[in-house]
């Protein structure tokens, strides 16, 4: 009896439209946001914003934030926060700066060393969270201050009293690994494109955009890898499961502890990567590097559809979330608006994103 009733198609089920199906994608909000923001700046901003050099201009900060946001998004999907990533950027910058300047290490040693230190600290964060059962919010808030303080103290030691350590550029200039972490990629292609007149040039014939800043390539590559891992690998499934319901995941054989600690490590390594790129770019490191970036990264992840409660979200969403950020910060300079509108926009965007995500979650889980 029960059999027959169930095997026929449920007559109360309506065919879902394309719109309804799209609504269930976590990154929808962020993509809509990018379209909105683009439309806004197309109307209000100087046309220079959407030239090749204008795009590189806003994509560079977007990429620096985005690398952090991808890590933060994966960690949030896994059900945890890391408020220490901004300070981690400063601390990793110190480790990296001291390695190459003070100790004169080549990049092939300094970069893995920096990442290993960051990963170790990330693992420590994770272990404290898991051992004590305290919310990651509070544990990593402690590290926000510890690492910022350590960066200040360390920099004074390394530089003899200053909170800035210079001379990174000179130290890494001739290193064969440097082009992977600083400057612009595909330079020759851009020169060639300029020669045949496809892109704008300065009067002397050199292209206005010398190449694609490497951080943009790292950003895109990381987004793709993170998306692939989340959607197509068992480990990705474990991330969703660990964030969705820790006990349920553990009962089903998911190694929740390992997953979460790995996520903390990945997030910290993302921070280290940002530190390495920005320190090499600026040629110096200082203790204020990465200030407030933890919040911006989390906001980008939330705009990208991550739920604060974990278990839901996407790396592509965080990708677009970071681009929205870059467009607004840089875009406002192309308009007549006061740049400080940025913060107001930020708060508003966050609020809208959270409300929207909450609504989506109810749709997905069928809660009413």
């Amino acid at each position, binding site marked *: 009896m029960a*059999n027959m009733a169930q*095997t026929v198609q449920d007559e109360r089920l309506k065919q879902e439209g394309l719109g309804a199906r799209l609504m269930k994608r976590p990154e929808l909000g962020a993509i809509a946001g990018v379209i909105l923001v683009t439309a806004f700046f197309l109307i209000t901003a100087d046309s220079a914003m959407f030239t090749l050099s204008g795009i590189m201009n806003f994509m560079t900060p977007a990429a620096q934030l985005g690398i952090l946001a991808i890590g933060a998004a994966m960690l949030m999907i896994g059900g945890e926060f890391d408020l220490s990533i901004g300070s981690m950027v400063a601390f990793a910058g110190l480790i990296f700066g001291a390695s190459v300047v003070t100790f004169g290490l080549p990049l092939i040693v300094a970069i893995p060393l920096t990442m290993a230190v960051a990963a170790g600290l990330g693992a420590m964060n994770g272990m404290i969270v898991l051992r004590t059962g305290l919310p990651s919010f509070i544990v990593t808030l402690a590290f926000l201050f510890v690492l910022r303080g350590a960066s200040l103290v360390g920099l004074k030691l390394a530089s003899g009293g200053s909170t800035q350590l210079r001379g990174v550029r000179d130290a890494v200039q001739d290193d064969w690994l440097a082009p992977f972490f600083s400057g612009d990629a595909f330079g020759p292609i851009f020169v060639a494109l300029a020669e045949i007149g496809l892109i704008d040039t300065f009067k002397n014939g050199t292209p206005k955009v010398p190449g694609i800043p490497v951080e943009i390539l790292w950003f895109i590559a990381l987004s793709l890898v993170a998306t692939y891992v989340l959607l197509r690998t068992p480990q*990705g499934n*474990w991330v969703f*499961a660990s964030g*969705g319901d820790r006990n349920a995941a553990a009962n*089903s054989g998911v190694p929740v502890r390992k997953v979460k600690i790995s996520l903390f490590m990945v997030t910290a390594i993302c921070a280290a990567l940002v530190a390495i790129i920005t320190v090499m770019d600026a040629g110096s490191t200082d203790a204020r590097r990465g200030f407030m970036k933890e919040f911006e990264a989390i906001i980008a992840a939330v705009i990208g559809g991550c739920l604060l409660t974990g278990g839901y979200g996407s790396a592509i969403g965080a990708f677009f979330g970071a681009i929205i950020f870059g467009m607004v910060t840089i875009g406002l300079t192309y308009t007549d608006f006061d740049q400080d509108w940025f913060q107001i926009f930020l708060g508003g965007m966050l609020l809208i994103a959270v409300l929207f995500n909450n609504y989506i979650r109810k749709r997905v*889980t069928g809660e009413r």
Partner: protein
Amino acid sequence: MTQDTTFHHGDPQREAKPIIQMKNIEKHFGNIIALAGVSFDVRPGECHCLLGDNGAGKSTFIKTMSGVHQPTKGEITIDGKPMNFTSPRDAMEAGIATVFQDLAMIPLMSVTRNFFMGREPVKGRRPFRRMDVEKMNETAVEEMRKMGINLRGPDQAVGTLSGGERQTVAIARAVYFGARVLILDEPTSALGVRQTSNVLATIDRVRKQGVGVVFISHNVRHALAVGDRFTVLNRGQTLGTATRGDITPEELQDLMAGGQELAQLEGSLEGTV
């Protein structure tokens, strides 16, 4: 209880050897004796009901059976061989699967992702090893269809399923992954009438595949609807095992309540309990 509300009972396989046998299990938590010598066994293709009131020790007992707790005293044998589970994983590997009340389901994740959670099939070589998504989707939809549930699609979130359907996903998952003994912890306690009958039908289906089902309940009606044998726990002890047909619902009810009080109560409630 009328005949047409019960499920068809095939051969209860009285002669079959038990898959798992628990002998005189004792479990102490500090100075608290949660289990004081409980014996229980499950044969292939039967539904063995474990009944008991709240606090009778049902949860402790099934957690011992599923490897969460280690018994203080007593012996567990699988296919006649002594076993010592140190973790739920050991029990799972021996074919003892437990569907806990929380179902180990994640509402935000799709049926497919839930179905294969922790045991995702992979294809390809490292480092390009990836989930075999097509196979996962096909299997999940197919296994659910076998249990009588037509999914909208493999990506349907578990949160959109009803309680009974979620229960069925959890059961289908355990059976698909080779459970020989399926422990169901109060699977019908939070369900409506229709959903309860769906879950009972699922139990029947699973039993016919030769899986031994342990059905934990404090609802005598639900137990009698599918059970082949009944064991009652009271204050950490078993009051014996009865076979279907040898015991009436009233006797079971009384055993669960420890005898007298309920009998008196029932009188005052005019037999409605």
